[in-house]
């Protein structure tokens, strides 16, 4: 029997019992809608994390002073004075797997322009930082090596700072005061958005490291830095870079076997990869919870198809007497079941996409409906039809023609 005819017969059967068909479909509609919505929310989360990974730059490790743990407890990392500019220079010079390394010193301060003032993070650093973080300027220029060498009183503004101090005005060339020291604005950075920790990365000002150490930090340890970002030459060399930095620092800080290191190395990409994994696992979990409702819907389909086979036993007998093969009957009922679930699937996809959009509007949570998830949902709905339609269809196909014809 040709497909068109099979489809026509199945559609007629579904139309005969419109209400019943709809109610049967409802299980699938709800299931698919739930799966689509869950996958959209999960994909949205993954997307955010992927963006964050891109925002910190790739193949990066972070070195901070102080040991992370002492018997499992974190002790004052970042607050000790054990990491110096010279350590960073040594890393650049002696670690072959390292492409860039950039030290940074972090303070918070009021920044004043005219009668405006803004409290923000001031970072002293070197030009490599912007290479590592893949962070360009939209206006003016970035910090150059000559600025660092000459301890120039220049600064680079993040978008948030520029907006709050200057509004519509062009900041480049203007003078701002940080801790009463005047700095010339040389550029404004691109917008970067939130960090993985949820901080506004654009709410910061960058100044040359030496300038910062001399004019702003003003402690007796003027050569210390708060952190160093190290970029490996490639993803494959990331582990090598980490080891090279570790052995170099151990040597420079005279840390022998068994002694607690006075610095901590963190692999930022790794942390985020873990976050991404857990978000994936979460959406998988949500998806599988949602797919339980699909199974329930599938059982509903099976139930109704069994009823339908019983009701139409006589019709099956007639068809067999007239020359339908078992396979023709099987296909007829399978088509009916699959049609039921596929129509339900399409409606469910629409509903789920709509639901995801509402969620993303109301909770301001990004959702992402991919072609992939729609395809999966659609194929899955068809698969539910095939799986749960098979038993009733086979029951129909196995009927004995005489018994079926005689059925009252």
């Amino acid at each position, binding site marked *: *029997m040709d497909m*068109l005819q099979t489809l026509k017969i199945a559609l007629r059967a579904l139309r005969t019992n419109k209400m019943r068909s709809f109610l049967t479909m409802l299980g699938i509609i709800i299931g698919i809608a739930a799966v689509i919505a869950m996958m959209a929310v999960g994909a949205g989360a993954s997307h955010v994390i992927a963006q964050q990974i891109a925002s910190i730059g790739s193949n990066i490790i972070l070195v901070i002073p102080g040991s992370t743990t002492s018997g499992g407890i974190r002790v004052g990392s970042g607050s000790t004075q054990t990491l110096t500019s010279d350590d960073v220079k040594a890393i650049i010079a002696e670690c072959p797997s390292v492409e860039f390394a950039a030290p940074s010193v972090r303070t918070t301060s009021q920044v004043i322009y005219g009668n405006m003032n803004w409290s923000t993070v001031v970072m002293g650093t070197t030009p490599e930082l912007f290479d590592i973080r893949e962070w360009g300027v939209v206006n003016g220029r970035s910090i150059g090596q000559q600025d660092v060498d000459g301890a120039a009183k220049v600064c680079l503004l993040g978008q948030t700072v520029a907006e709050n101090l200057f509004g519509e005005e062009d900041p480049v060339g203007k003078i701002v005061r940080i801790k009463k020291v005047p700095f010339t604005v040389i550029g404004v950075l691109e917008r970067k958005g939130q960090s993985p920790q949820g901080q506004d990365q654009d709410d910061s000002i960058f100044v040359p490291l030496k300038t910062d150490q001399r004019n702003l930090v003003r402690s007796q340890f003027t050569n210390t830095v708060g952190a160093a970002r190290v970029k490996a030459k490639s993803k494959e060399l990331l582990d090598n870079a980490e080891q090279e930095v570790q052995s170099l620092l151990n040597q420079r800080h005279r840390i022998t076997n068994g002694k607690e290191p006075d610095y901590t190395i963190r692999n930022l990409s790794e942390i985020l990869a873990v976050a991404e994994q857990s978000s994936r696992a979460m959406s998988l979990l949500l998806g599988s919870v949602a797919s339980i409702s699909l199974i329930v819907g599938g059982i509903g389909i099976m139930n109704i198809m069994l009823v339908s086979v019983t009701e139409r036993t006589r019709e099956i007998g007639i068809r067999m*007497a*007239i020359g339908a*093969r078992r396979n023709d009957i099987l296909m007829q009922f399978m088509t009916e079941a699959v049609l039921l679930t596929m129509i339900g699937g399409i409606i469910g996809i629409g509903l789920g996409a709509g639901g995801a959009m509402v969620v993303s509007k109301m909770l301001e949570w990004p959702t992402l409906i991919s072609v992939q998830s729609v395809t999966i949902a659609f194929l899955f709905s068809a698969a539910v039809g095939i799986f749960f339609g098979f038993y009733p269809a086979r029951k129909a196909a196995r009927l004995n023609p*005489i018994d079926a014809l005689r059925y009252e």
Partner: protein
Amino acid sequence: MDSVISLTDIRRVFTMGDQQFEALKGVSFSVSAGEFVAIMGASGSGKSTCMNILGCLDRPTTGEYRLDGVDVGSMNHDQLADIRNSKLGFVFQGFNLLPRTPAVENVELPLVYAKVPAKERRQRALAAMEHVGLNGKENNHPTQLSGGQQQRVAIARALVNSPAVILADEPTGNLDSATSEEIMNLFNELNRNGITIIMVTHEPDVAAHAARRITFRDGSIIADTRA
């Protein structure tokens, strides 16, 4: 011998639990092409059981059945379905049309399973309907037709695939005598055109239209007469 149908020592034993019942006790006869046979006999004598075997809807417990020279006994489900489709046409007492389906689609049904293209299917179905005098009723559903008209649709459906044999089990059982007469005249006309017909009936008036009469009693043939 150009017999379309030949039954040799057909037995059919029904088993229900530990009880056995022999509905056919060694039935043998053959039917030549172009014959019109009426099968008669008391209720429960095995007529329908025999017709089901002739129609390849049931298999004999023992015995040989040759249809158009082919031994049907060794065939599988699909082969039997194809035989029913191409060589046999059924007319039932209760018409057995598909509900909620236009008459013409009911007539087309055997051609659907024979994988005839849609256009040709419709042409042949309309021709068959015209043949049985149902012009203008193509799109009526079974519930919108009289009993006699429904049986004509069933006959058109039996005819549409040009079968070797039409099997009719009490085709007039649900019809009044005037309508029965019309249906029998139609059968006679089809038979004159060369179609072999085997028909079960209880009514002597109806049986009188057939040239040959086989009588059953308790699962055996007790008479086989030609007019």
